[in-house]
């Protein structure tokens, strides 16, 4: 029993050490860490080489480019720093900034009053105009005014002023807001919606990429009334950032003409689908490495998460099945520890992993200044989360072992730990393996929520690819295939492991002692 505690505290110390080593300085001076989705062309996108002045994405071998990236370079130069791009999902941008993971948001973000409560903004770095993107063959393609959309199903990106602007369009059916542009383009092309509100650069991009789509130009009188606070894009900074004045000074030096030129360059440089060849080879050729890296990350996180989670689950399972001690003090301690473990299991089983990831990664940074490496944070979260599930699986496995096995071991003089190690756990683990395989497979798929803390696993990579080549169906079909290959391989592999543990179906009857002794050597290895 003492040994169990030794093991447990060992694991705890190791975990803490990992956390400590993976922390880094909040803001290494000399670098200007800029957060963006790197999937919102022409403002920002991901590409695989450094052409056209692209900037390397932190923790990845990919590059980011676009209007935002070029603007970031100018600004960084003015404050004497070097740009580092941190690829972050839209929802993760603000927490990343306030928690110090990044120094600025340059991601086509508007300085709304709501956002100003939490963060600061520079003056405008791009002034945009609202438009509506529609199918070229639809009757709305001829609309001249925002009131020409009677009966049209319209949507826009979640938590943007685009979505608020739908109110101005008389007689439209306002659909649920959607998460991102790729999703809206798919919805539009499939007819689920008739149009989405967006900004002109995005409209140009959508039209260039997909000839079935077009964006509409409205005269000032017939167009959207917009708040300059909204259409104006600004750089998000932490409150009281000392560099703000310098940045504004630099922005003032860039005239509208230069800005329009930068936008034209961006639209021209943004990745487009190369022509010819079949779609499959084409996607693989252009984005294969990106998808492969995403696959590697998904596999790494789910594999490590499942293994560490298994170890956690095993320890928790053992502790929770320790028989009641005799003395009162020990019983109280056991009650308390079991209570803690129950809380751990309920909390991690009872909350979404996406929330846990955000709390650990952004929350810990904001509250304690603990700046974890994002991959490490992902590994920790998936491990702890899986541990909560597997400890219940193992507990079930232990309970399902026949009482007679415990009794025989105890009657032979085994201690509780020896009984567990030599007799009960091997059987409990064997019984739990199918459920553990299940957890592994669930992990492969569920790691997709980790894009919220900027981990470029397979699904995040797929979103980036689809956001750039606009071949949603084909891209996701390929990714679907990759997921299937992963999960199928794993379930087969675990079957083999199960068979190996079960040993041969038949045994050889030993005819003489010599043979028996030989075989016994094997048996005991």
């Amino acid at each position: 029993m003492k040994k169990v505690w030794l093991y447990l505290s060992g694991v705890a110390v190791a975990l803490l050490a990992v956390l400590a080593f993976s922390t880094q300085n909040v803001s290494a001076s000399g670098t200007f860490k800029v957060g963006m989705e790197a999937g919102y062309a022409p403002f920002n996108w991901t590409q695989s080489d450094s052409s056209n002045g692209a900037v390397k994405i932190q923790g990845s071998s990919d590059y980011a480019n676009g209007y935002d990236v070029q603007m970031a370079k100018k600004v960084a130069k003015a404050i004497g720093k070097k740009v580092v791009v941190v690829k972050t999902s839209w929802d993760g941008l603000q927490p990343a900034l306030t928690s110090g993971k990044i120094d600025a948001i340059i991601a086509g973000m508007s300085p709304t009053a709501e956002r100003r409560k939490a963060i600061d903004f520079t003056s405008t770095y791009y002034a945009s105009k609202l438009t509506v993107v529609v199918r070229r063959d639809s009757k709305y393609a001829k609309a001249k005014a925002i009131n020409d959309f009677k009966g049209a199903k319209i949507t826009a990106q979640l938590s943007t002023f685009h979505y608020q602007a739908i109110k101005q369009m008389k007689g439209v059916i306002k659909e649920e807001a959607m998460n991102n542009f790729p999703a809206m383009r798919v919805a539009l092309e499939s007819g689920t919606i008739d149009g989405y509100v967006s900004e002109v650069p995005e409209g140009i991009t959508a039209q260039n990429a997909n000839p079935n789509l077009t964006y509409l130009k409205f005269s000032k009188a017939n167009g959207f009334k917009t708040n300059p606070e909204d259409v104006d894009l600004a750089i998000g900074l932490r409150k009281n950032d000392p560099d703000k004045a310098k940045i504004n000074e630099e922005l003032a030096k860039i005239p509208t003409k230069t800005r329009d030129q930068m936008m034209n360059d961006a639209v021209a440089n943004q990745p487009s689908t190369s022509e010819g060849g079949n779609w499959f080879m084409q996607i693989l050729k252009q984005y294969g490495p990106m998808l492969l890296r995403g696959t590697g990350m998904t596999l790494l996180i789910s594999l490590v998460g499942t293994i560490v989670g298994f170890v956690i689950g095993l320890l928790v399972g053992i502790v929770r099945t320790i028989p009641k001690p005799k003395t009162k003090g020990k019983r109280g301690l056991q009650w308390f520890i079991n209570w803690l473990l129950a809380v751990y299991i309920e909390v991690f089983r009872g909350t979404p992993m996406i929330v846990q990831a955000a709390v650990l990664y952004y929350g810990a940074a904001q509250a304690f200044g603990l700046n974890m490496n994002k991959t490490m944070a992902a590994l920790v979260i998936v491990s702890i989360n899986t541990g909560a599930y597997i400890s219940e699986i193992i507990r079930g496995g232990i309970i399902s072992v026949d009482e007679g096995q415990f009794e025989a071991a105890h009657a032979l003089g085994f201690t509780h730990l020896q009984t567990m190690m030599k007799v009960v756990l091997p059987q409990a683990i064997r019984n739990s393996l199918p459920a553990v395989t299940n957890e592994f497979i669930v992990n492969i798929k569920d790691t997709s929520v980790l894009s919220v803390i900027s981990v470029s696993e397979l699904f995040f990579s797929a979103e980036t690819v689809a956001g750039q080549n606009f071949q949603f169906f084909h891209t996701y079909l390929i990714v679907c295939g990759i997921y299937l290959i992963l999960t199928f391989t794993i379930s087969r592999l675990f079957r083999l492991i199960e068979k190996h543990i079960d040993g041969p179906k038949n045994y050889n009857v030993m005819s003489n002692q010599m043979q028996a002794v030989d075989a016994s050597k094997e048996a005991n290895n």
Partner: protein
Amino acid sequence: MADTIIEVKNLKKAFGTHEVLTDINFDVHKGEVVSIIGRSGSGKSTLLRNINLLEEPTGGDILFHGKSVLSGDFDLPHYRAAVGMVFQQFNLFNNLTVLQNVVTPQTTVLKRDAASAKTHALELLKQVGMDPFINAKPDQLSGGQKQRVAIARAVAMDPEVLLFDEPTSALDPEMVDDVLNAMKALADTGLTMIVVTHEMQFAKDVSDRVVFMNEGVIAEAGTPAEIFDHPSEVVTQEFLKRYLNRA
């Protein structure tokens, strides 16, 4: 009497308010074979399980070489290794082969080195006729084969006393003799044994002493001749009559 190994003194066991053992007193001496017989539910298994502390007595005491096994500083694993047990349901370790079942307890509890544990195991498995099956897993064996392995496993610990709880009750009739023969052979080596059994012939032939239990107490105890031929208590007579009719 000299060489008393186990003394059971005023032993009581209750499950909640249900008193199963009311007041048990008896001694076991070195080299003795004691059979415990009695009606189903009379508390025979409970008595054995209290002796090796699989259950905690609620009253009285158990002495091992004159020392109370219930005192706090008693070395429980050591005591249990010295008091072996063979179960009605065999309880072989399902994850281990036959050989490992006999080797692992020796290396784990007695810290024997693997080689001598193996030699010892093979010797005992040969004695019970199970040496051809050392690589089998328990679920690949018949009940009688399992029980013989379980006996080898218990004997491998070199116990001072071996407890048997109806070792043949879960077996098909044709396998009962194999197991009883193995037990007889053990008794002949001078091993101290306490055997709960419904095999009256075995009790008669092999034991030195027979204990008849009834409703949580020892109703009568004596030599096999005393108990089987001239039982003095009415309950014993009735029990034996019913048994002989059935047989």
